[in-house]
């Protein structure tokens, strides 16, 4: 059963345990751990981990922990896992209260006892809580991220003394931190039910974690940028080479005694696919830098804020882009910003693919914008354009504006083939009755800017008129930026 390479290092003979195989379960944390374990075992996927590879991977993790036994404090070079242990494995054998009084040999003995491979041979006669195979032991918070103490019986089955787990599943939980970014007292992980993506992303995470653990000293004092975790996910998604078949989750957690914490954010699968398309489709890639610029604030870089918004408020991406363009127009006395054409394919595809706005309806708004541009662009006075922007801002009376302009449209000599009606019923419903009416109105503003830019329209007028236009555009930009 057990083989001893030396008197202190027991190892498992995998041949005696052919059932040491890893199964993916319903737990995101176990799944991340399973893929991390696969990397440590040099297997291509959890299903490919051999019993021998599993034992080797567990041994490798134990060796990492044993590397801390000679250290007095976690802050010393090489103290990565000791430092992380307070957040991951509180009250475990790596960081007992009496650790300072223990000798390195005593610490080694305690860690080996905690991660003993002998558990692999035990049988409880009850199924593993994750995979349903026979469990080998009872486990609690010391081994299960976000688990309960083994002394608490609220959530365990009658007579159970903790959570029953099999050896491969508990090994996955031990491997979980390797698939995470451990910083700032938090473990941040990317999860998806798309196994291929999860495998790829976890592989990269394991490499980064092992690199951080191997560094002679932790990079201290480096303040993380705004929404750094969300930005990491955005970049991972954009850099992924295959179609994503499931949403992508960002999970931030802590298992510390001070505060057990779990925060999960989800990036929808359509958004993830759209982000990938901004790398792979030439017309979208060209405008990506312009789009990220529209998302920026004084405090937050554009791509970081884009990353945050695609997780929490996808509709805000469109609103922020239009607000930015209005602010740019205000700065240039009403002149349409030059980046409008480059943004067009991005924003239209975003409306269609992410905000689920029907392609035919997007086309309707585009045609409506063309009619409005004909009306507004009749002369170069800034007044009519200013009135439209004001009416289509928060608090503006767009309905009243359309009512008066519909008359103008009837009186105005229309180009051949142009619709007789300025605002058909379907367009009206989109702008005023649809549950996403604000998004449709933002799209209309953008499409009007685009149509005017194509027509080469520029406002001309007295200094007073241009100043009023600038002020109104600036006010609209501020109102539209408000989270709402």
């Amino acid at each position, binding site marked *: 059963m057990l083989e001893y390479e030396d008197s202190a290092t027991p190892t498992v003979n995998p041949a005696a345990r052919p059932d040491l195989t890893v199964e993916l379960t319903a737990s995101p944390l176990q799944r991340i751990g399973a893929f991390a374990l696969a990397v440590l075992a040099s297997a291509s996927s959890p299903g490919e981990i051999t019993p021998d590879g599993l034992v080797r991977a567990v041994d490798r993790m134990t060796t990492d922990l044993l590397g801390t036994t000679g250290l007095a404090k976690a802050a010393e070079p090489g103290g990565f896992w000791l430092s992380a242990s307070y957040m991951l494995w509180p009250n475990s054998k790596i960081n007992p209260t009496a650790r300072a009084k223990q000798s390195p040999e005593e610490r080694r003995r305690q860690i080996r006892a905690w991660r003993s491979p002998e558990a692999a041979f035990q049988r409880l006669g009850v199924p593993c809580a994750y995979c349903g195979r026979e469990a080998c032991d009872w486990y609690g918070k010391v081994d299960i991220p*976000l*688990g309960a103490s083994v*002394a608490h019986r609220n959530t365990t*089955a009658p007579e159970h003394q903790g959570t029953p787990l099999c050896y491969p599943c508990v090994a996955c939980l031990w491997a979980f931190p390797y698939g995470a970014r451990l910083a700032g007292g938090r473990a941040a992980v990317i999860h998806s039910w798309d196994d291929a993506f999860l495998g790829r992303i976890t592989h990269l995470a394991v490499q980064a974690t092992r690199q951080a653990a191997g560094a002679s000293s932790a990079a201290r004092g480096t303040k993380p940028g705004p929404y750094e975790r969300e930005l990491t996910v955005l970049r991972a998604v954009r850099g992924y080479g295959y179609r994503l078949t499931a949403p992508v989750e960002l999970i931030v957690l802590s*298992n510390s005694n001070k505060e*057990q914490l779990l925060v999960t954010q989800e990036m929808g699968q359509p958004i993830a696919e759209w982000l990938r398309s901004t790398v792979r489709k030439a017309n979208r890639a060209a405008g990506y830098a312009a789009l990220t610029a529209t998302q920026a604030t004084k405090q937050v870089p554009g791509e970081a804020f884009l990353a945050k918004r695609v997780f929490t408020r996808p509709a805000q991406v469109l609103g922020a882009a239009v607000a930015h363009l209005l602010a740019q127009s205000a700065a240039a006395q009403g002149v349409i910003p030059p980046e409008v054409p480059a943004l067009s394919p991005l924003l239209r595809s975003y409306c269609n693919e992410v905000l689920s706005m029907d392609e035919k309806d997007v086309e309707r708004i585009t045609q409506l914008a063309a009619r409005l541009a004909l009306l507004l662009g009749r002369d170069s006075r800034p007044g009519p354009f200013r009135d439209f922007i004001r009416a289509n801002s928060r608090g503006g009376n767009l309905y009243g504006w359309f009512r008066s302009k519909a008359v103008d449209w009837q009186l105005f000599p229309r180009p051949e083939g142009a619709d007789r009606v300025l605002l058909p019923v379907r367009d009206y419903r989109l702008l005023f009755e649809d549950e996403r009416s604000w998004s449709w109105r933002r799209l209309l503003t953008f499409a009007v800017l685009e149509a005017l830019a194509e027509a080469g329209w520029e406002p001309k007028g007295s200094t007073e008129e241009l100043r009023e236009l600038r002020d109104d555009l600036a006010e609209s930009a501020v109102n539209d930026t408000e989270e709402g």
Partner: protein
Amino acid sequence: MPQALEITVTAPVVSFRNPLYDGLQVGLPCPPPSTVGGLLAAAAGGWDRVPSTTRFAMAFHAAGHGTDLETYHPIAAPGTETNTTIKDRDFLARTTLTVWLTDDLDRWERAIRRPVWPLRLGRSQDLVAARTTRVELRPAAGFQGRALVSDTLSATTGTRMRLTTAVSHDRSRTRWEGYRYAADGSSARIDSALATPTGQAVAMLPPTHPDQFLAD
């Protein structure tokens, strides 16, 4: 046309705990099928009075959500002391659960009108009101709306989740399955085979009866 019993269950506040994180009180956005199966079993008077083949379709809507504080009383292992503490707990507000049953309609109608055990959803203190109506189903695809559907159905949208389908009688076994749920509703048309007169998809979920573990 096939007929269904439509059960509408309403509650001002409910909370469905995610059992994967037993150190925290993490909430699910909708009840798992095992919870709804348990509610039906309470109405019938226990699992012994529920046919093992019973299946249902369900939809769920919460008008709001939040996090409150709850006093947590750990049950201690023999010989150990534990301290009562305060924990965050996610909750859902102004909720409506709709369940469609297509078999034993008379029996279920009687059970919901005169439930044997008090009907609860989630926590023991979250009592609910339930009423029934008969609806004619159309043998057609429907829109997903706020239905909880199996993720094996094609064209479904919403968050993919692993939820408990069934729990064994002694609570030592759990059957997990993949589902999709769009809390804000989904306009996706899904191949549900049945739909209500309003076009809502009626997608039957796997059986929740604990007897299914007896065969394992």
